[in-house]
């Protein structure tokens, strides 16, 4: 009896197992309740497409959350990157250089965020909210609200190709997030980021280059947002100022579901991957039952609240047990 209890407890306490079980339950439920519309190729490819963009953003968001920050500008960076890459390809630049330049721009935006947070001591949400506004506005200014379409097949094939039946888009994002997951677990640099998020002052006192690493974290966030933007432009064949609205909260929700905390010092990319899956599937459930794609915003908001609540309950349970 006791053994059983322990096992049960372990399952509950191991976040990854809980997340896997939850995802399986949701998927099973949907398959049983909506076998026709849920279990078909086009629905799944739709889920995986949106998941891919979210997954890339969540890589950056998880890292930023680990250092105790937050990046609300990623959605706008996605739009910016889609426009830049669209414009560059239309001007005849090669696919490779387009990607490099676009991602660089994303990374530079990230660095600016990081400098505002570290050098100018702005609260992360204020700084990144301001940058979000600037970039989104800039996107509207440069496109005057029009879409930039008619991109070269070389560019659009980037995300439409399949490799061994797997869409390249999915492949890129999954491989990258696995790499980030491994790096977070293995690399010295990222270990230091966990320390910064846990106690910024102790980290500084210990001689950890906290400011530099924070800027680096924001840079990575910008980098992944840039990449996500390139792939969106490639997938939909155009750049638009309206891409990426609300993406930041989905990425935050997915990261927090996956084990990151808003106060910093925690986060696990493998958890985040399932967080992204759960957000995407729940989203799809709303679309299946509600019939509207617009549910996605409401879903990410509600999911974020529920996750925060679950963490709160878990934390107070831990306190009660005397930790």
């Amino acid at each position: 009896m006791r053994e059983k209890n322990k096992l049960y407890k372990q399952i509950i306490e191991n976040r990854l197992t809980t997340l896997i079980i939850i995802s399986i339950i949701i998927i099973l439920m949907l398959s049983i309740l909506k076998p026709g519309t849920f279990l078909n190729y086009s629905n799944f490819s739709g889920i995986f497409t949106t998941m891919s963009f979210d997954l890339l953003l969540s890589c950056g968001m998880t890292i930023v959350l680990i250092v105790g920050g937050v990046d609300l500008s990623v959605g706008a960076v996605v739009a910016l990157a889609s426009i830049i890459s669209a414009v560059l390809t239309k001007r005849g630049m090669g696919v490779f250089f387009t990607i490099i330049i676009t991602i660089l721009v994303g990374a530079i935006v990230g660095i600016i965020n990081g400098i505002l947070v570290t050098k100018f001591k702005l609260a992360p949400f204020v700084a990144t909210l301001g940058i979000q506004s600037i970039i989104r506005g800039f996107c509207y200014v440069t496109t005057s609200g029009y879409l930039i379409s008619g991109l070269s097949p070389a560019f659009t094939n980037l995300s439409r190709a399949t490799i061994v039946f797997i869409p390249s888009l999915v492949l890129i994002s999954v491989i990258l997030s696995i790499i980030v997951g491994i790096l977070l677990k293995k690399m010295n640099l990222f270990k230091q980021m966990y320390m910064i998020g846990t106690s910024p002052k102790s980290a500084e006192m210990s001689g950890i280059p906290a400011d530099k690493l924070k800027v680096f974290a924001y840079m990575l966030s910008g980098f992944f947002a840039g990449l996500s933007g390139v792939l969106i432009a490639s997938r939909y064949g155009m750049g638009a100022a309206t891409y990426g609205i609300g993406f930041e909260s989905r990425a935050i929700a997915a990261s927090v579901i996956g084990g990151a905390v808003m106060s910093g010092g925690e986060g696990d990319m493998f958890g985040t991957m399932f967080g992204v899956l759960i957000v995407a599937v729940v989203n799809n459930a709303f679309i299946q039952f509600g019939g509207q794609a617009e549910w996605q915003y409401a879903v990410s908001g509600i999911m974020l609240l529920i996750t925060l609540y679950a963490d709160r309950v878990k934390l107070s349970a831990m306190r009660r047990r005397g930790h």
Partner: protein
Amino acid sequence: MAEILICEKICKSFSGIEVLHDVDFSVKEGEIHALVGENGAGKSTLMNIISGVIKPTSGKIYKHGKEIVLENPLDAFKEKIGIVHQELSIADNLTVAENILIGREPINKLGFIDRKELNIQAEECLNIMGISIDPRIKAGSLSVGLQQVIEITKVISKNIEILILDEPTSSLSEKEIQNLIQLLKRIKEERNLSIIFISHKLNEVEILADRTTVLRDGYVIGTLKREETTIPKVINMMIGRDLDYHKSMLSKNDFGNVILKADRLFGKGFSDISFEVREKEILGVFGLIGAGRTEMACALFGYDKLNSGEIMLKGNNLVIDNPKKAVENGICYVTENRKELGLFLTKSLKYNTIASSFEEFNKFLGVMNEKKADIVAEKYVKELQIDPPNINQNVFEYSGGNQQKILISKSLAAHPDVLIVDEPTRGVDVGAKEMIHSILRELANNGMAIIMISSELPELLKLSDRVMIMHEGIQKGTLKNDNLTEEDVMSLAYAEG
């Protein structure tokens, strides 16, 4: 004079550890009663009990001979007991009048604040205090000293009979302190007010107090009448300790070369500090709270700003503007505030140990060398006898003494030449204290230069080869530890000039 407040056999425990033991304490009508003691003696705990902030584990409080029960601070105000905490509770953007009369503002028929009446009432309160500040100006535009006065006015204007002041002078200038002392004396006379005055500045106590109660380690050591109160006597009561604790651990070392030399350091909270420390030497730095020792250490370490002064490390001039640079140059600082500035409570022992030396644990391409980290952590667990010896356990699960050892091992893992330890045994039990002392001695014997900052004289005299004495930001002198006594140090600390 009748006794207005009597505390009888007050005990208080925090998570099983008793911090006040059967404390008896009384205040007479119209007296200024000073409460002194070192850090952790239980002064603030006792005052928090009297002002209803916390509840005692056992014991009774009587006022005018009647037992009172204080559930919260508002109860205390109802019993006419008011406290002015060390941190001020002034709202900068409200006017002086509003701050004084907060919660009791006169309002007119429309529910608006009746400014005229408010200002008249506030002016009256201020007049009683004998100060003329315009009540209409914003409180934020006043100096800290005047804000302190406003805070006292606010509390007194609630018609209290007992006023508790918790370290009221800690952030005031000399001039402001003099003003405050005059003020307190006057209002005591005029209003027959009883004042409980907590301070670590013994000269103020001597001037001000009608009686002085000394606390040490949660016990009342004694209460002195005004004519009995002399600084040496108070100090003696404050720091007297068990004899076995005083076993000397002085080295017979020949000291090596000068490693660190500080020349005329100036900064916030300290000025004109010069010292040098050699290989194999422990330099003690003595000072009570407010002496500027921690501020000096933080500035030396690059965490705070050093306004001017030179630091020489092994003969080379060095500018340290951030802690990273200090650590890289072989200077490590073991903070007194281990929970906020030292440890990473929700991370494992292992990661806490290597937090100052991450760079040394690279394998290839920046991959973390976990094995090496395990070995290093295990090594310090063994050397410092950290218990439980589980390197993967989170640090918040360890006792205070073991947390302190983990903090020390964090610095040691960075292989410092100079180790600055700040209150290394604060909040640590006796066994661990002894242990930490021998660790420090051992480190010095092996060639490290150690600067040990402490307000506990016995531990300084036990360990340090020389003692530098700081008082209110000024360096009072450095004494060689040849059978140095506590009285020697104290008399230098409180020497005039």
